[in-house]
């Protein structure tokens, strides 16, 4: 009989060690709350990451291009602002504001032959392209403004003739998302209607 009594006591202890339905429900609810909060945090973090990545990647090639043009302008001997159409660069005529979709850079004093580099904005494909030795290369995407380049004087006035000491101002306007999944605000269409990259560069060797 002792054996039976011990067995029943053991059974009773096993019963006490388990969870009740109420305990399970409460723990499940707490677990669900914690997991929900963690997942919400992860989604929030991913959204912020996507937003930042969109901002940076949309203009990354533009920043690289601005840096490249800046280096070439600082070291060049001559630079003209003009219009580039049908694979031809035309300098802005004297008397007209020196602003256009292209610049022509001469790295040396020689201004004949193909001794130049042209950067221009392609309005059809909304790209910034570089032409050197007749080879065209796309260097930046999603640039939508046509007049990307203008020549100014040291006071910021747009020049109307060619001068030896111009400040070349470059402006790139971006209005297209690289990743359209990045919604910003309540309206994902043209959420950012104001997005520029600008810089000014002066040649170092004027004479």
């Amino acid at each position, binding site marked *: 009989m002792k054996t039976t009594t011990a067995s029943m006591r053991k059974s009773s202890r096993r019963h006490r060690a388990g969870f009740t339905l109420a305990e399970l429900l409460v723990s499940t609810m707490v677990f669900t709350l914690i997991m929900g909060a963690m997942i919400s945090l992860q989604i929030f973090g991913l959204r912020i990451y996507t937003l930042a990545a969109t901002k940076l990647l949309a203009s990354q090639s533009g920043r690289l291009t601005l840096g490249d043009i800046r280096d070439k302008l600082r070291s060049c001997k001559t630079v003209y602002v003009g219009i580039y159409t049908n694979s031809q660069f035309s300098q802005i005529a004297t008397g007209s504001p020196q602003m256009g979709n292209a610049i022509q850079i001469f790295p040396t004093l020689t201004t004949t032959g193909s001794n130049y580099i042209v950067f221009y904005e392609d309005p059809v494909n909304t790209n910034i392209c570089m032409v050197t030795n007749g080879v065209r290369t796309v260097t930046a995407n999603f640039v939508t403004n046509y007049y990307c380049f203008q020549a100014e004087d040291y*006071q*910021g006035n747009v020049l109307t003739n060619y001068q030896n000491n111009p400040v070349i101002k470059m402006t790139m306007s971006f209005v297209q998302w690289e990743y359209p999944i990045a919604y910003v605000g309540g309206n994902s269409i043209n959420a*950012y*209607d104001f997005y520029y990259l600008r810089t*000014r560069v002066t040649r170092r060797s004027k004479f």
Partner: protein
Amino acid sequence: MVLYLRQSALAKSESAFTLAELMVVFLLLSMVMSGLIYGYVQANRVAQWSAMSLAVQSYASQGAEQARAADWRPRDPTPTSGATNGPGTRDELPPTIAITPQVNFMDIPAQGNPTSTDFSFWVTNQVTITDVSINPPLRQIYSVCTWTFPLTGLQFTNTVVLLRAPDQ
């Protein structure tokens, strides 16, 4: 045969959490969660500050480049007008000329179009020219941009300094 199957009151009370235990758990949970959220918010804030600072630095550089474009050719003959400095002369931007501060908006993504009354995205640039040395002639172009970080209201300055010699 006597069976003792009664569950003791003490064992029953030990199987549950006390209110104090639950409060401690909730406190710890709140601290961990608020730490995580604060980390996300702080990372976003620093990223925004970096973007603004980079844009302001670019604007300071533009002011310095613009001043760098001014002619300074002291060895040229004196022009017939007699003016030795000022626009169109051989020394267009001498240290004696006070340059008007330029105000413009930052090149950062912003919702909507900034207005002149919204100073969250605006930057002020002041360029100063000073003589570093008379012989040999050397000038310093000091371009300072001041701006306000909108999330804290604190003011910051970014500076670009260039040295230039004449006839170049």
